[in-house]
Every structure is written in structure tokens, then in C-alpha cells.
């Protein structure tokens, strides 16, 4: 027997975003600005990740979802809004999204949000997304620097909307969506009503490069910059603090071989390991 219980917040008030549009589909894309996405990041003296070293960029993991959003509105009409929370430099990430073709941006930047934990981040982003118009909210499956992968599910519940994670393909379907969701052993197909939040896996689309025209056009697209207080989020206390950082014991270097010996050495090792 199923028991039905209301959610923590009343559906009437929690879905404060202006949902729906007459024509086409509006998509809000979350995009994180991350430090040094291709190298090894580093920790500052306060044990927090250094986020303002000048080598940051839009998280490559968010570009797959942005590309999907652009394709959806190009096919059916509507607008794409980028939402990002980060240091002032994160504006560069929003601008890259605009240069790729998004229509407007919303940047939450606030020194008080440095070191924000997963819950604070989700609350702030929920308040920010609620200010945008959306039929669909798209995030990455996990961020390159934080890789918790939980923020999107928290966000969907705070917004009071349906969600499908690990999506590799999405199509509009009647009044909602039809999504292919990656699973451990293959994939599932889900249907979901509007509005829905999805997380998009790496490799799901092939993100475009911003064109010169796109980069020029981005300069005149609207970007709102707000603080946590502007969004009405005041409880910013983090529930997680770093107690200690230690270096893992380094692994002793192994044997390196080249040339004719190689095959014999590998086979010897397999024999030693008793696997052949």
C-alpha cells in the first residue's frame, strides 16, 4: 500500500520559477567555473581549493549539457539561460556559454560563499534557478573539481520538479521528455513531465566552439550578477570542515622495460600472479 505524503515545501510556493512558455522551450543550464580543469589543482593554506589562480575555465563537463540545450532551442524555439555560482572570475565562464549561443546569464558571486558545502550550494542555486524561466534545467553529471554528483538531485527536490540523472540522450515527447539514462549495465528509458531537471553525461553531445561572431555577440547579452543575500539565502554555514590533510604514501616506482624482453616479462608476471 502506498502512502502519499506532501514534500517538505508546498508545491505551490516552491516552484517559484516562471514555468513554461507559449512557444518553444526555455532551458536553464547550470555551468560551473572550475580551476585548471586539465591540470592538477592545488589547495590553499586554508585547505580550500584555490579557485582564483587565473587558470580557471568553464567546466568542460557542463559543455555537453549546454550543447544539448542549444540544439533543443535551435530546433524548437525558446531561450537558454546560464546560471553559475562562483568567484567574480566565473563571469568568464558565463561569457563562454553566451559565446556558444546561450541568451542570458545569471551569476551568483559572494565572498561569503567561498567553501560553501553541497547543501548551501544547492540552496543558492535553487534560488537562482527559480528566478529564470525554464521547462528544462540541465546540469553536468559531476563537476570536474568537486565531483560530488549529488547537487543536481538536491536541487531538483528543492525546486520540487522531476529529475533524471546520467542522461545521454533527450528528446521532447508529448508534453514532456523522453530520456536515455546510463546505468551500470546498460541504459534505461524514462519519460518525465515538464519541467524536469536532467544531468548530462560526458560525451553525450559534441560541444561546439564559440565562433568569432558568437564571442562578439556575447558582449551585449544580459548578465545579472547577484549575491546570496539578493537571493534571500542567509544561512551559509558549512557543515563540513577539513580537519587534516596528509600526503598518501608514495608508491615505489616499478620496473620499466622496453624492446624484446617486454612480452616475456609481462608473461612472467602473470605467471607469478598465478592468473595463467
Amino acid at each position, binding site marked *: 500500500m502506498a502512502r502519499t505524503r506532501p514534500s517538505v515545501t508546498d508545491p505551490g510556493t516552491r516552484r517559484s520559477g516562471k514555468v513554461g512558455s507559449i512557444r518553444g522551450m526555455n532551458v536553464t543550464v547550470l555551468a560551473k567555473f572550475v580551476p585548471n580543469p586539465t591540470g592538477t*589543482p592545488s589547495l590553499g593554506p586554508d585547505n580550500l581549493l584555490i579557485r582564483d589562480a587565473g587558470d580557471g575555465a568553464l567546466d568542460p563537463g557542463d559543455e555537453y549539457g549546454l550543447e544539448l540545450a542549444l540544439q533543443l532551442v535551435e530546433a524548437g524555439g525558446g531561450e537558454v539561460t546560464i546560471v553559475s555560482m562562483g568567484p567574480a572570475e566565473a563571469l568568464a565562464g558565463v561569457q563562454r556559454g553566451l559565446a556558444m549561443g546561450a541568451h542570458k546569464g545569471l551569476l551568483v558571486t559572494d565572498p561569503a560563499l567561498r567553501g560553501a558545502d553541497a547543501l548551501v550550494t544547492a540552496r543558492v542555486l535553487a534560488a537562482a534557478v527559480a528566478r529564470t524561466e525554464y521547462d528544462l534545467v540541465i546540469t553536468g553529471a559531476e563537476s570536474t573539481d568537486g565531483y560530488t554528483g549529488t547537487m543536481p538531485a538536491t536541487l531538483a527536490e528543492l525546486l520540487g520538479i*522531476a529529475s533524471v540523472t546520467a542522461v545521454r540522450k533527450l528528446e521532447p515527447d508529448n508534453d514532456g521528455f523522453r530520456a536515455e539514462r546510463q546505468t551500470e549495465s*546498460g541504459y534505461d528509458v524514462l519519460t*518525465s513531465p515538464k519541467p524536469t531537471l536532467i544531468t548530462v553525461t560526458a560525451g553525450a553531445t559534441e560541444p561546439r566552439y564559440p565562433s568569432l561572431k558568437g564571442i562578439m555577440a556575447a558582449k551585449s547579452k544580459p548578465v545579472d550578477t547577484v549575491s546570496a543575500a539578493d537571493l534571500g539565502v542567509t544561512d551559509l554555514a558549512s*557543515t563540513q570542515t577539513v580537519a587534516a590533510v596528509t600526503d*598518501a604514501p608514495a608508491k615505489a616506482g616499478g620496473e620499466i622495460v622496453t624492446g624484446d624482453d*617486454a612480452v616475456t616479462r609481462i608473461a612472467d608476471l602473470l605467471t607469478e600472479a598465478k592468473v595463467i
Partner: protein
Amino acid sequence: MGATWVYAEVTPDGAHPSALELLTKARTLGGEVAAIALGPGATAAAPELGAHGATIVYASDDQVFADQPGRTAAHTLHWLIGQHTPSLILLPGTYEGRDVAGCLQALTGSTLMANATDVESASRARTEIFGGTKIIDVDLAGPEPRLILVRPKSFPPEPGGGTPEIVAVDAVTPSGPTATVVERHAEAASGPKLEEANVVVAGGRGLGGPEPFALLDDLAAAIGGAAVGASRAAVDAGWVPYAYQVGQTGKTVKPEVYIAAGISGALQHVVGMKGAKRIIAINKDADAPILKIADLGVVGDLFEIVPALTEEVRRRASS
């Protein structure tokens, strides 16, 4: 400390290995240990969960948990938490675990730590960053239960328990719109499961396309009991399905031997295989990072070495 709960992923085939790993850890924390098993197969898995340390198994076989993943389990857990007030909930770092934990956090307002590799108590857990080169101990605060998502294979599962009390629970279906599963498709390779195989032969971008994966299949077959894996670069390129992926976003493997061919050894790949007992890397670039963590590093062309190795393994097997 108060009770520790383990969110036990179950299918009609049994408990997910992560459930047994987490229960083994939960037993060491002091306090009562319960497992929460939601979905088809839950009641049948209860004895195994008990044998690994759960004294109570809250179980429901309701199909709704499989059809409306994530939210339904989180709302049911939230209701159970209200009844029994545990201190700590351990969840597996799988897609399902992440979705349940993320949604549950919105309902309870409690802290949620992801990617944990060890757990000391409800107020302290450990994670590793930068490909496992730095160990971070994290203090957790805020309302209980604290939520911790643990990386797969962080603890070896060991039996040590008894017959659990099974408490049937009803599904709590959340109000509002929910996504529903309408089709299921399997893509996994035949042969041994990647996470359970004794030997893993993995290929990366260095293979250059889907066809050369046949070379790895041949080597795996010659070894016997070996599974084929891949780096994300090979999966993203569409050469092999996601079920092959090893690493941070894919599977965590701890085989006796891991053979990496044409894989550079990026941090996110390494976290998924560094626990292998012996690592063999074949790479044509002497500076590839994978060679620094390999027990045996071969600098050379995989297209020459892999077929020759397959021959040699066959020869030794038949002599």
C-alpha cells in the same frame, strides 16, 4: 553513537556488493546497524544483509522503487528517519546512491559527504583527492542523520552477523511530478563482471578505434577469467559502452592484475584501478603518468606487444 543505517542497493539477483562492504564497516562503528533495502529483491536479500551485520532490515519489494528511481527511496527513507532517528546513513557512491542521498539531503537538511574512502564516526570521515595522492579528514556537523556516500570497494566485505529482523515498510510516493522508467536495456559484455574479474585488460585512446578492442578480447580470452575495461576517452568516443569504463565516473576495480594499454593514467582513471595488486602498463610514451604507478611498465607499441603477449600466454597455457 546512535544507529548506523546502510542504504543497501538490491536487485532480484541479490544485494549489490557495496551493501555488504558498507555493512562490514558499519559493524565497526559501535551502535545498532540496520539496512534499508527498497525494491524488487529486497526481502530475498535480507538474510545476506543480516549475515554481514544488519540486525534489522527495513525492506520493501515494491516495483515503484525500480520504476521511479531516486526520489521514492529518498522519501521513504525520510519517513523512516522520522520514526527511528539514526545518527548516520552510509550510501554507496553509485548513480542510485547519489540520487537518493542528494534528494534526501534536500528533505533532511543534513550534511552530505561524497566520495568517502573511510568512515570514523558520524562526525568524521575521510576522502582522497588529486587521484589519491592527498588524504583529507573531514569533520561533519549539523543535524543527524549525517549522510556519507562511500566509494565502491573501500572496504572488503566480511560476513559477521546473524539472522536479521525483517521489518516490512510501505513505499512513500512523493507528491508532484516524477520521472518513470519505461524501458530497460543491457549492454554489458559477456564474460566475467568487470568489478569481480581476477584480471582486467583495459584499453584507452591509444587503441585508436573500436576494432582494436578485439585484440584485448583475445588477450582476455587467452588469460581466462579476465574482463575488458576502458578509459573514459574510449567510452566517450563510442568505441565501447559505458559499462566498460574504469575510474572516478565508472567502475572501481581491484583485480590481481590490471593491464592498461594505450591509457595515459589521468587522475580520474587511476582512482578506479590503483587498488589492483599488480599494475602492468603498455604505453609508447616513456613519460606517460601511468608508468609511474605501474609495477611493470612497458614502453612500446601496444599493436605489437598485445598480440605477441596473447601468443605467449597461449603457449604457456598449453605447455
